[in-house]
């Protein structure tokens, strides 16, 4: 494409049928981004909302987003969880302004339309007009039916203490959406134990949202970019690992088992910067204690397309919510949690290991940075393409990490759904 001399192609086409060379314009076009919102975030896909433990009591609510659409998760007195769109049925205001709280109902301050926690319209001031001098002024038309003017309600799925929702009421069940392979890794973390919320961290990353999905589908980079990981032996190219996808190739799990130390082999010295001698000054940073629920793997990173990543990196567990805002930016919201039966030592261990992750994390701050720099490269010449051919051009599961197969899988799926 570069050969034609066009840097900013008009209505370009993806050359060929593969998914190993992704056009830069897939990250830079506003029209494609809008289509992604419609087809990936607003239809056919369950999107992450939050953890049930964020709204433990009746009346608790949390505001979040599905794609760019502001929504509210509520807990009603019967223990149910509801998700409604934060747009007033009257004149469209985003009325809920607090991030979280507790309330009997949902009130739009503009004209005080009132909704219950399920989103049903329960009150319209002056609905029957105002009596003045023997006549009734104004009021809604006689055929106005409050039941037709509730907030937009999303379909809700709850599993293991996690809440997903969809604007698309015809969507397949959540379990089918994940598929059996990925569901098993989801259930590994969320097996029904009570969770304990540890807190949030937020960052705005100036890059296309897909770059974060790619980042967590990319086992090629951690031993290289994240020098900290490899310096202290937490990530080595000879770690045992597996890469698995769902049947649609949209979700994935990167499963790895930490090497037991030992000599740096030829293999590892070629691909990462592990130095045997390096030790942290405060060993608590790497005080890893095996938990029975892990099974054999010491880290599993699960990407649930398009909206969330589930992190289990040794004792640190979190959800990472992708909240796109425009083709070139997204907010990345980390919710760290533990389990209600953690002893104080385990809780403290999770909090200390959280230093590795998040917007300032030893091995995560660099991910945000490289995503920003990737986007800059794409904007510079949208006619060009990336080269995602480590390990070949296929889209099969893998029993090693020297491959970009998961990224190719995601774009094979993306092409199908997007019609590109």
């Amino acid at each position: 494409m570069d050969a034609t001399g066009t840097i900013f192609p008009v209505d370009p086409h993806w050359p060929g049928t593969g998914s190993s060379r992704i056009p830069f314009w897939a990250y830079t076009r506003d029209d494609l981004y809008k289509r992604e919102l419609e087809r990936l975030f607003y239809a056919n896909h369950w999107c992450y909302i939050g953890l049930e433990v964020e709204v433990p009591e009746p009346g608790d609510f949390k505001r979040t987003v599905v794609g760019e659409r502001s929504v509210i998760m509520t807990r009603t007195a019967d223990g149910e969880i509801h998700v409604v769109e934060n747009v007033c049925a009257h004149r469209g205001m985003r009325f809920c302004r607090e991030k979280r709280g507790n309330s009997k109902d949902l009130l739009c301050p503009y004209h005080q339309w009132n909704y219950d926690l399920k989103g049903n319209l329960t009150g319209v001031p002056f609905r029957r007009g105002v009596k003045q001098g023997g006549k009734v002024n104004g009021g809604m038309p006689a055929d106005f039916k409050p039941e037709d003017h509730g907030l937009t309600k999303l379909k809700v799925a709850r599993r293991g203490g996690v809440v997903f929702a969809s604007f698309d009421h015809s969507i397949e069940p959540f379990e089918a959406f994940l598929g059996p392979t990925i569901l098993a890794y989801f259930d590994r973390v969320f097996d029904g134990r009570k969770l304990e919320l540890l807190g949030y961290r937020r960052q705005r990353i100036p890059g296309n949202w897909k770059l974060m999905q790619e980042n967590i589908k990319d086992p090629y980079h951690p031993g290289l970019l994240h020098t900290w990981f490899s310096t202290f032996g937490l990530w080595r190219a000879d770690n045992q690992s597996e890469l698995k996808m769902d049947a649609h190739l949209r979700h994935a799990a990167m499963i790895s088992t930490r090497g037991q130390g030992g000599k740096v082999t030829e293999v590892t010295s070629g691909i990462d910067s592990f130095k045997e001698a390096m030790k942290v000054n405060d060993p608590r940073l790497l005080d890893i204690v095996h938990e029975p629920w892990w099974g054999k793997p010491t880290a599993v990173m699960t990407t649930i397309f398009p909206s969330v990543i589930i992190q289990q990196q040794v004792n640190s567990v979190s959800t990472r919510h992708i909240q796109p805002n425009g083709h070139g930016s997204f907010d990345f919201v980390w919710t760290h949690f533990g389990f209600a039966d953690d002893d104080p030592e385990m809780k403290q261990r999770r909090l200390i290991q959280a230093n590795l992750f998040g917007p300032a994390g030893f091995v995560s701050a660099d991910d945000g940075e490289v995503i920003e720099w990737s986007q800059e490269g794409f904007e510079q010449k949208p006619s060009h393409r990336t080269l995602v051919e480590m390990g070949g051009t296929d889209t099969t599961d893998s029993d090693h990490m020297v491959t970009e197969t998961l990224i190719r899988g995601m774009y094979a799926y993306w092409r199908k759904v997007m019609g590109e």
Partner: protein
Amino acid sequence: MLDFQSYSELLDLYSSYAGVVDSSDWEKWPEFFLDDGTYRLQPRENFDAGLPLCLLALESKAMIRDRVFGVKETMYHDPYYQRHVVGTPRVLSVKTTDRGEEIEAEANYIVFRTKREGVTEVFNAGRYRDAIVRTTEGLKFRSRLCVYDSEMIPNSLIYPI
């Protein structure tokens, strides 16, 4: 509560700290802390909700040194300058403890970030909440908690606040 001499030492601690973290002389940063001193940088939403998670929770001088190693040696990031503007510290209490005099103080701060070829932007605004003790080498932090209003970090935060 504090005599003039002690308050002037406190001012000196705050301004030296700002000087060091703005200077790229990261090796000097851990020296402001006791050996078991802590440095925590926490989004205000967690602080207000009583949630323990921090952006950084460095639980000892050794761990603060580990952070310095990360900043200097391992973390890839856009280089930037930072500039702290720290308000006048307010002394909340002065107590006598088994370690001697302990001052509880707080001060507002703003940190500006300037990337190469970039314009200067407000990077992080918040409040220091400190516990400070007197040692033979002058005042040191037993704990420094930075609670920041700027909950949405502009991509990443590398250097110490």
